[in-house]
């Protein structure tokens, strides 16, 4: 208690300097937390993927389609439980800036494979039975003010024309990391329209989602699928959903690495600031530490006082920074919801904030503590006098 009081009194002896340092740590922790959250958001698709789902696509590129007839062949492969399929639609709502991911899928199998998209029974029934129906994530629905029963028109880019949909359901995520910005409608609706307007593009599928019986046999099943279409007109690549999602992330990996680097640079900068504060404080108080030594306090007692003071400053700043991260992340996430639909401060980010602050406190106190531990009493007392 006595020592804790001494630590706090020492830490806040030079109020302005300490306040500025605490503010610096708080801003650094906030920035670090936000940047880590951006990185987490980037990987949210990977994190949300399931080990029991595989994705099959054209071996050349995702932009090339696969014949719809592959469905039956895939279904017959040993280890495959459910087959769903879909196409990236790429529709625009009013203006290009209103971006949200939209897919034509097979609703029944898709919802079977994605139990994390939660709809009420009424909404689900309506969606399954309405060929022009769609289900929208609540983030997108809230953003554009859509309600159940509303008609929404998307302008097709890959599939030209104005496409009308009825909002049958607004889904919410079962997990915090579930993307609530997506828009799904019936693949049959797209296919039927294609048959009429561009028959050569009908019966074409962008990707298959495979529900497998045993996730431990994922590699085996994926190989079997790809083997089935070997030397066909459209060879396939089948991979786990995680690997598929990672493929997207790795396209922008340089950005993610840059963000991660900046987050560490922020910590290094604040480390220098705190180290400077600690060095100044300890230098000013060298005489007092020598008196402590004279009274019989050992070097490790003094190191404890210096490290303790550094921890008081850094953890106070860390607490302020973490408290500030939540509203800042909310505001940032709202502003960036189009690009980063899953944006929340995870417990891991908070742990990293604390870990970074502990590291800063420890490293900042190292040199001052070492100096005080090794100063001779007689030499120190001469400085005091």
């Amino acid at each position, binding site marked *: *208690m*006595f*020592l804790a009081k*001494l630590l706090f*009194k*020492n830490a806040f*002896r030079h109020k302005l300097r300490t306040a500025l340092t605490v503010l610096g740590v708080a801003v650094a922790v906030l920035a670090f937390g936000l940047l880590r959250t951006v990185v987490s958001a980037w990987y949210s698709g990977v994190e949300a993927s399931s080990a029991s789902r595989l994705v099959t696509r054209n071996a050349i590129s995702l932009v090339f389609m696969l014949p719809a007839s592959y469905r039956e062949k895939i279904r017959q492969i040993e280890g495959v439980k459910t087959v769903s399929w879909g196409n990236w639609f790429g529709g625009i709502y009013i203006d290009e800036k209103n971006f949200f991911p939209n897919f034509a899928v097979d609703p029944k199998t898709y919802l079977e494979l994605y139990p994390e998209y939660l709809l009420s029974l009424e909404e689900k029934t309506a969606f399954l039975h309405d060929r022009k129906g769609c289900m929208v994530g609540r983030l997108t629905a809230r953003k554009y003010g859509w309600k159940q029963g509303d008609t929404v028109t998307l302008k097709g880019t890959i599939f030209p024309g104005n496409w009308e949909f009825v909002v049958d359901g607004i889904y919410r995520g079962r997990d915090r990391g579930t993307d609530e910005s997506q828009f799904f409608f019936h693949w049959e609706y797209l296919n039927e329209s294609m048959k009429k307007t561009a028959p050569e593009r009908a019966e074409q599928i962008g990707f298959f989602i495979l529900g497998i019986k045993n996730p431990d046999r994922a590699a085996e099943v994926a190989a079997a699928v790809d083997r089935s279409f070997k030397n066909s007109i459209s060879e396939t690549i089948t991979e786990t959903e995680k690997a598929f999602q990672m493929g997207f992330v790795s396209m922008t990996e340089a950005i993610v690495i840059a963000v991660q680097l900046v987050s560490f640079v922020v910590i290094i900068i604040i480390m220098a600031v705190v180290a400077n504060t600690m060095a100044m404080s300890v230098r000013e108080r060298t*005489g*007092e530490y020598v*008196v*402590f*030594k*004279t*009274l*019989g*306090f*050992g*070097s490790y007692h003094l190191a404890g006082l210096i490290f303790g003071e550094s921890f008081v400053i850094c953890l106070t700043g860390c607490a302020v920074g973490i408290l500030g991260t939540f509203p800042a992340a909310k505001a940032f996430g709202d502003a960036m919801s189009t690009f980063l639909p899953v944006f929340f401060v995870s417990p891991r980010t908070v742990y990293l904030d604390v870990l970074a602050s502990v590291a800063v406190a420890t490293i900042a106190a190292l040199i001052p503590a070492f100096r005080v531990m090794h100063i*001779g*009493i*007689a030499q120190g*007392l001469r400085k*005091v*006098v």
Partner: protein
Amino acid sequence: MSVPPPLVKIRDVSKSYRRGSQILPVLQHIVLDIAEGAFLALMGPSGSGKTTLLNLIAGIDRADSGSITVGDVDIMSLSETDLAAWRSSSIGFIFQFYNLIPVLNARENVELPLLLTGLSRKERREHAETALQVVNLADRMDHYPSELSGGQQQRVAIARAVVTDPLMLVADEPTGDLDRASAKDILDLMCRLNTELGKTIIMVTHDPRAAERAHIIRDLDKGVLNDVSGQTPL
């Protein structure tokens, strides 16, 4: 009647400092005995080595050669850790500039050395309050050093020095920063500690008036201890 063994026994102690490539001898072949309960004043011009000798006796500096025994302890053979533990239990320090911790009040400053003992918080408090009563500062316990006069600060420092009931008190120019009246109060207090509580005191001073209050005065000149001019024989 047998003469009791000295509390402090210094034999052939030498000490030098290095300045660049130059070696400056500070103390040369010092031999000194200090009896238990003595009040010794060390005098001498600046640079004569009196503070160095005091530091050696108090275990805050190391001699180059010779031996220093305090009680039964050969302090030159102790490790740094053991020496720190010995200092905390055996030596009370009084400095010229008091050296109180500014963020602690008088009671907390006095309590500081007791943190190294196994006393409970309540016991520490009681000991500190008793020590402050001894130095007549019971009414200033909650005052911070900046709220006390120089003389009062030095009395707090003396309370801090005696609170662990050490074997001896070492004082380096304890009146050097005080006006005449305050200096007299401090010297009176030190004399009381010596006569009433039997504390052995070793005091370094420039001030002949302060030195007069001691039982023995030893003079150091260029690192050599001159003969005794004592009022009370050892």
